[in-house]
């Protein structure tokens, strides 16, 4: 998946009279999972990165210098991700890396990047990536722990104390399941049923029947991504379970409603980002212009709805571009220092303010509790 975008924009450059400056000075590397089990995450990420770099170069690059994006597809395999990270750093000589769609691939890239002292912005969820803080590693998505906290806060407000859990056994589902079980006690909530399913399973009624029959269960939470949660949601309605159903940020996209079916998805709640409800945000919302612009550009170019994951890539690249601009240099060390000093950068996921102790820079406020109403997303709060 290597693409040299500098070759795709010469027309724009000629128009600007800048064709002689086509030699890219800034090289940004990316290894994402465009194929494989995590293609659901990696595909929109790759598309977003390509679109943004093209756009950036058409607008004259960063500080007048063209940007080259070197993009690889690791297929969700940590071993491949490590090889591509090595290739990006030692062969392509990039100054920064954005990528790592899954926690597994992120951990593989992370160790190479830290050794080589190259700044790395991860697009994966697990809290372990930035806690404890690693010198060169940053990340853009909320941690799955924060997603659990957001959901349990909402459950607590609705007076639920006993909930059932049904999780996918993929990395995303398993990690969030563990985090949720870890924090659930803080909210006075008890998990009375804890079931799992394989991401490729065709029917989850057996697991849901067990949850339905669990003693005193008041709500159900489904950490997972891909088609699993859509099937869970359908089976949930098939069994006629009337309890509130919560999904995770892993399915925060319009296609979830479409796949689960409008009727089945009605009333489902999940913690999502501003991107999903761009049209519903008040004009005063600082994120409104950013999410509206990204959504319009992406949907026009690829004819597909935006997803939260593409948004993570958007923010990852935006962070790096902002850091290089402020640093006035594309030296890896300078980019790292500038990344750590990021302050008030408005992204699609939230508003980032980093510090030496916090390489994520988001808080719970960026998560919005969304609910499906009449086949569309609405903001609950």
């Amino acid at each position, binding site marked *: *998946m*290597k*693409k040299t975008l500098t070759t795709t924009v010469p027309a724009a450059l000629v128009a600007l009279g800048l064709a002689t400056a086509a030699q890219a000075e800034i090289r940004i590397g990316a290894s994402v999972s465009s*194929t494989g089990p995590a293609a659901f995450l990696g595909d929109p990420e790759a598309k977003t990165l390509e679109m943004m770099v093209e756009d950036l170069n058409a607008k004259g690059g960063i500080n007048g210098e063209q940007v080259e994006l070197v993009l*690889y*597809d690791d297929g969700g*395999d*940590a*071993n*491949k991700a*490590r*090889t591509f990270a*090595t*290739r990006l*750093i*030692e*062969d392509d000589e990039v100054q920064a890396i954005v990528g790592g769609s*899954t*926690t*597994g691939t992120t*951990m*593989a890239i992370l*160790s190479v990047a830290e*050794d080589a002292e190259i700044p790395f912005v991860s697009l994966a969820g*697990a809290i*372990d990536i930035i806690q404890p803080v690693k010198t060169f590693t940053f990340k853009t998505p909320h941690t799955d722990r924060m997603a659990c906290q957001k959901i349990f806060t909402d459950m607590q407000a609705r007076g639920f104390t006993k909930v059932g859990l049904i999780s996918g*056994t*993929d*990395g995303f589902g*398993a*990690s969030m399941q*563990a985090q949720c079980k870890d924090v659930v006690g803080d909210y006075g909530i008890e998990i009375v049923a804890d079931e799992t399913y394989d991401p490729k399973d065709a029917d989850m009624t057996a697991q849901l029947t067990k949850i339905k029959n669990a003693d005193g269960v008041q709500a159900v939470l489904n950490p997972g991504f891909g088609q699993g949660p859509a099937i869970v949601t359908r089976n949930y309605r098939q069994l006629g379970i009337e309890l509130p159903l919560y999904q995770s940020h892993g399915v925060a996209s319009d296609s979830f409603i479409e796949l689960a079916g409008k009727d089945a998805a009605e009333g489902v709640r999940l913690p999502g980002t501003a991107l999903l409800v761009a049209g519903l945000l008040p004009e005063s919302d600082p994120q409104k212009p950013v999410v509206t612009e990204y959504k319009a550009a992406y949907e026009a170019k690829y004819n597909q709805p935006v997803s939260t994951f593409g948004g993570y890539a958007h923010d990852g690249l935006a962070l790096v571009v902002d850091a290089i601009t402020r640093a006035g240099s594309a030296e890896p060390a300078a980019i790292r220092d500038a990344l750590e000093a990021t302050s008030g950068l408005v992204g699609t996921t939230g508003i980032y303010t980093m510090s030496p102790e916090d390489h994520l820079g988001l808080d719970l406020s960026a998560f919005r509790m969304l609910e499906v109403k009449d086949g569309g997303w609405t903001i609950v709060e």
Partner: protein
Amino acid sequence: MRISTKYWTLLFLAALIAVTPFFFPSGYYFRVGSLLFVNGLAVTGIVILTGYAGQISLGHAGFAGIGGYACALAPVHWGVPPALAVVLGAAVSGVLAYLVGRPILRLKGYYLGVASLGFGILVAMVLNNERALTRGPDGIEVPDLGLRGLLKDWGLNLTNGEFWYVVTGICLLIGAWIALNLHSSPTGRALRALHGSEVAAGTVGIDVARVKLQAFVISAIYASVAGSLLALQNKFITPDVAGFLHSVEMVTMAVLGGVSSVPGAILGAGVLTLLPQVLTVFAEYEQLILGLVMMLVMIFLPEGLVPSILRRLRGRDE
């Protein structure tokens, strides 16, 4: 004649490993080289099982997973030094192969395939689900081998890539040497006899079940050590290493290069290790081309690259 072929093969392999680094433009090539050697080692085990003994396994990645996770878990939980963890993983794999192999090696062809597949999936499933121990699908860190630091103290300063290139290269040479020796040993002859016909081998007094089991255990140890080397080199491992796709990859590498010969299988490992790196320039067409190459090689060189090409060369000489 046979003995000299064996040493020529090893000498050629050693020379190749030693000389190519002088042409590497960057450190990344050491990484690809060491991956190739790790795959080559695993595939050499497949040669013993499939090439010599004629048995199919679609679950050998399970042993690679055991070897890999031994290096991740044993040093942390039981204070075993990482180098010893490799041996521990190999021992566990060997014992497990013995226990599993006894019942399933009675099966033939596809039935053996599905039984070994089941074994591999069980291992992958345990690694995925036993989160408390293995940290689940997101993978787990593996402690440093510590040897590179030791070499540094002795004044031999290698980069991480160079170090692993050397270590895996040496391991591959040792693995190839053992496999080639086995080929000309009495056990090797017994194995090849039963590959020809199990019934015939039985009638001339070969203990078919025992010899098959030996091949299965030895090849499991190869896969285990390869998994350990991969884990130690990456300092990180995920359950994917034990997955079905990895099992299929091993068999594909061996068959593509020529499952009946050690150098053939290593070449197959080389092709399938390098191909994805080369194909990155084709972007979305990568999968398409990979599938096409596999089909074309098997259609036109059904015995694999090395044996088929050798046969053609010999045919031309005569």
